[in-house]
């Protein structure tokens, strides 16, 4: 910092830091508020889930996870995420590129449309596919004639998940790429770099954390989505139940412990991805320092 401002030597270090950060009291008050807020709003529900999950001990917990229906639900959930997340990632990168690297009319509208699935009630996100592909829907009769099932089967669940997680990657990348501007890419192109090369060599390194973060969020949401999937799933045990639906079923069967055990599994998956994220992040920082 000092190097960046060589001419300001007269300003003593102390004054600068005093005015550039808050007093210790303010600082710790703010930290306290943050921890309290996150603790009450987010951590408390998590602890509740864990406590309920282990209420009947470890063996009951493992038992709940070993249930064949739970495993089938896990498989379906993973399959869904495996299809929905990569597709949404490709889309997110393309959309962010188009929106941030070029100026065109209707950009605001486009961004808003991309945001739309955030705001659409999950109930509606499921319903629209029923209206489209259901037996009484617009394409339903044709699909039945050709023996293709979309709703109440895996494709419907994947589609609903794609809808719900649609904006995550794009949303993460757009502000990031916006703030980075287009100078780097322009320089590369003027030096003769081709399109894909420019993207992989110049843009991608700049956005990779935002991208990774978007993917992680997209994935977490894809695995946890309940409302939309509930509408398009047939709720058939071991066939079209994702983990969140399986949790609801267990809960409705008075198997609270098992329900929370499966819920804690989803939580665990989310936490693990977040740990991986911060691990890569710290490695990146250290390798940067090494350069």
């Amino acid at each position: 910092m000092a190097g960046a401002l060589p001419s300001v030597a007269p300003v003593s270090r102390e004054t600068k830091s005093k005015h550039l950060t808050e007093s210790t009291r303010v600082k710790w008050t703010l930290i306290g508020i943050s921890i309290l807020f996150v603790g009450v709003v987010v951590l408390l529900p998590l602890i509740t889930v864990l406590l309920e999950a282990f209420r009947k001990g470890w063996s009951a917990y493992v038992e709940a996870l070993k249930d064949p229906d739970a495993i089938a639900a896990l498989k379906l959930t993973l399959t869904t995420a495996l299809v929905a997340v990569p597709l949404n990632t490709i889309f997110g990168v393309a959309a962010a590129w188009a929106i941030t690297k070029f100026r065109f009319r209707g950009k605001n509208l486009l961004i808003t449309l991309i945001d739309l699935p955030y705001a659409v009630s999950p109930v509606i996100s499921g319903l629209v596919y029923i209206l489209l592909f259901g037996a009484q829907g617009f394409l339903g009769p044709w699909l039945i004639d050709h023996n293709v099932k979309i709703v109440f089967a895996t494709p419907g669940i994947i589609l609903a998940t794609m809808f719900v997680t649609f904006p995550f990657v794009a949303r993460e990348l757009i502000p990031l790429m916006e703030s980075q501007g287009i100078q780097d890419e322009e320089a590369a192109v003027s030096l003769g770099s081709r399109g894909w090369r420019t993207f992989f060599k110049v843009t991608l390194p700049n956005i990779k954390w935002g991208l990774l973060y978007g993917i992680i969020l997209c994935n977490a949401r894809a695995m946890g989505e309940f409302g939309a999937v509930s509408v398009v799933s047939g709720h058939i045990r071991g066939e079209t139940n994702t983990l969140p639906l399986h949790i609801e079923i267990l809960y409705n069967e008075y198997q609270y412990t098992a329900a929370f055990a499966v819920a804690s599994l989803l939580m665990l998956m989310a936490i693990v991805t977040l740990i991986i994220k911060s691990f890569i992040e710290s490695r990146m920082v250290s390798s940067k320092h090494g350069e």
Partner: protein
Amino acid sequence: MASIRTKSVLPGYRLTLGFTILYLSLIVLIPLAGLVVKTAGLTLPQLWDTVTSPRVVASYRVSLLTAFYAALVNVVFGLIVAWVLVRYRFPGKKIVDGLIDIPFALPTAVAGIALTSIYAPNGWIGKLVEPLGLKIAYTPLGITVALIFIGVPFVVRTVQPVLQDLESDMEEAAVLLGAYRWRTFRKVILPELVPPLLTGFALAFARGIGEYGSVVFISGNMPLKTEITPLLIITKLEQYEYSQATAIALVLLVLSFGLLLIINSLQRWSNRRLRSS
């Protein structure tokens, strides 16, 4: 299309925009258009009666107000949390940072069940506040609590990167000019944070209006009092009233869309203003 954009040396305009629009249409726009078509099965007076019947109007009120307050709470605390996470070092910082994303990942139904068991009259917090005559679960307050949970990541995660990228030059310059911390914050930092705060608010708000899974458990679902609009959509469906259900859904959709459009325009406007100044 090419004619209305300014020239750029960068490649991939048609490819990326084309793909964006195609994918957007397939996954989002065409299915949503189905909603409009289905609603068209109603005549205009029927449509009007459906979306303005007293119970439906009451549910808009509940959904909008609770989502608004929840988003407001999230803006205030989200800003503080983002600030703390970017500017300070303290033990447990990583954990707090990681916890922020949990509401994205936790299935909403699980969140609803967990929150209800905490805030119900016999739950941990419900028990604490009951002697004060305060009821949380099964009141609009309970809905707000659920929506705060759902909305936490939106504000924090939109503010955080901007705060991180905020050049400290400007703050330093302000300090050199003799500004004190609070003044620096108000005059230099806050204006930069307005766009992400607005976005975060809008996203949390819009998400809150439509939220179903976590709310039905904690709301009590009393008509006129704690009945949310998404529940009414489900209610209509249970009665096999598809077009009425889609009519209400459409109102929600237009509401969310308008909101997002306003906020996105505001944000771009303020971005441009900031850049030019």
